[in-house]
């Protein structure tokens, strides 16, 4: 990275000089930091994002270049009052930002202005740290009534939750299986957050079907000219994860050719960008996620056996909600509190009838479906208690069918 118009600085104290010497790789320096850094021009337009901030925001530096900082960072504190315009610069401000994958992340932003000896502003920096859930004794404190934490009461889930700190200490790949909506991605993120890599990026990649070259570029990066759309060198998600964690969603959708390349990455810790001839070292831990049984995938030839054995150094299966009915009541209360707080509504309970209708429902979409149902019910409910008519129509219909069947018997 070259920061334009940086004057040559001399060595006299208290100024640090020589930072802009031509041999210095400023981009590599910023990329090596475990916190997000964005370099801004005087008008607060983006000149550079480091890798940690690329992973946090979901925008690559080439996409973000030239855009106003607030548009890419989307931090609440910056939008209410830009910290660069505040008195007492370099005081950190805390808030949240919205990532490209639509997640709200708590962050701390520290603004820094870099000036020359004459006090002339050269450029600005924002240091962005993702704030973790407060921890006690190394264990995340479960937040009551939050929407993005893994919570459960049943014995099997308690066993899995207790395993998280142990899994987090390992460097070996982890394979998470479970039906849709059981919390596979949340578990992957929880493992990352409790690991020594937690200050490094957590990067999610969906291996959903897309043109092979594009997927290869997404995962392994590309060099300029490797494809018609490759207008400049771009690192892949494996490189973007740095020394953090990369979570490969729906690993079975990865074409077999890319699976073979992934095997090589896991063995050699090297990736060859699309069209490139120089391998790049990667240090990210790999967590793979699939909603289909790996054995079925192996049998149908959709998953390479060598990849399966490498990925399943540790393997966790999240049970569907129908196999842990004792959690339904707990989760209903948990999400009721969370949505009531979020939507600022005074909904405090489910009526007996509504609770019975929910208890008899099969939740094929598992916890995600339960959560959406509670979200809907809280939004629709005008009073304090959720009645059956506040539940989505498909649920009332199923309850009705259940009653008719009972009467017929």
């Amino acid at each position, binding site marked *: 990275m070259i920061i334009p118009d940086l004057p040559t600085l001399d060595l006299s104290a208290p100024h640090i000089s020589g930072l802009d010497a031509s041999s210095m790789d400023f981009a590599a320096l910023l990329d090596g930091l475990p916190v997000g850094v964005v370099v801004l021009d005087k008008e607060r*337009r*983006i000149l550079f994002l480091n890798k940690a901030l690329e992973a946090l925001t979901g*925008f*690559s530096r*080439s*996409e*973000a*270049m*030239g*855009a*106003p900082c*607030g*548009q*890419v*960072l*989307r931090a*609440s504190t910056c*939008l*209410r009052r830009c910290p660069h315009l505040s008195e007492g610069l370099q005081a950190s401000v805390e808030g949240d*930002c*919205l990532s*490209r*994958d*639509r*997640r*709200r992340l708590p962050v701390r932003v520290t603004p820094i202005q870099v000036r020359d000896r004459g006090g002339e502003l050269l450029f600005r920096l924002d240091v962005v740290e993702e704030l973790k859930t407060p921890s006690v004794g190394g264990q995340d404190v479960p937040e009551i009534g939050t*929407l993005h934490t893994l919570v459960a009461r049943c014995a099997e889930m308690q066993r899995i939750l207790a395993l998280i700190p142990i899994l987090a200490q390992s460097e070996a790949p982890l394979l998470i299986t479970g039906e849709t909506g059981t919390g596979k991605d949340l578990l992957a993120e929880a493992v990352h957050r409790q690991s020594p890599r937690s200050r490094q990026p957590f990067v999610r990649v969906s291996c959903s079907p897309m043109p092979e070259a594009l997927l290869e570029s997404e995962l392994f990066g590309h060099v300029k000219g490797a494809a018609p759309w490759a*207008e*400049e060198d*771009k690192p892949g998600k494996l490189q973007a994860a740095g020394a953090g964690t990369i979570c490969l969603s729906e690993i079975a959708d990865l074409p077999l050719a890319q699976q073979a390349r992934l095997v090589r990455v896991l063995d050699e810790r090297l990736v060859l960008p699309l069209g490139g001839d120089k391998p790049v070292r990667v240090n990210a831990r790999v967590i793979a996620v699939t909603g289909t049984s790996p054995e079925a995938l192996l049998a149908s030839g959709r998953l390479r056996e060598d990849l399966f054995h490498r990925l399943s150094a540790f393997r966790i299966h999240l049970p569907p909600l129908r196999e842990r009915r004792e959690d339904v009541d707990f989760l209903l209360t948990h999400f009721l509190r969370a949505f009531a707080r979020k*939507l600022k509504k005074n909904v405090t309970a489910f009526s007996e009838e509504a609770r019975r209708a929910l208890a008899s429902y099969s939740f094929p979409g598992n916890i995600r479906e339960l959560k*959406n149902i509670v*979200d809907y019910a809280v939004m629709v409910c005008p009073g304090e208690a959720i009645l059956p008519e506040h539940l989505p129509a498909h649920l009332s219909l199923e309850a009705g069918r259940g009653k008719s069947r009972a009467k017929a018997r």
Partner: protein
Amino acid sequence: MARTILIPLQANDVAPRFDLAQAVMLATLPEEGAALTTTLVLEQPSADGLCDLALSRGVTCVVCNGIEEEYYHYLRWKRVEVLDSIMGPVDLVLERLARGQLKSGDILYGRGQGAAHV
């Protein structure tokens, strides 16, 4: 058929966040001819408020930058198209929308790789 578009605003640009927008543009895009636009200043920023506004005004498409997953899916569930991670001046957004050339992730500031040709 004319389309009704809702765009959260920050000055003349798409607001960085759906939930923190203080103003909103409602635009009617006829099949031919210029867009008719109205700008509303909100009492207070609120994602719920914007969802309600979109539904009560029969909005067919929301164009925004950052939006939380839950609001995104809620609007989609209500059959409102959502184009998110759009950055740029609102007049360029409307121009591209009218030409059917706007897609999620377009950055219309004109310098980065993600920048659409403007």
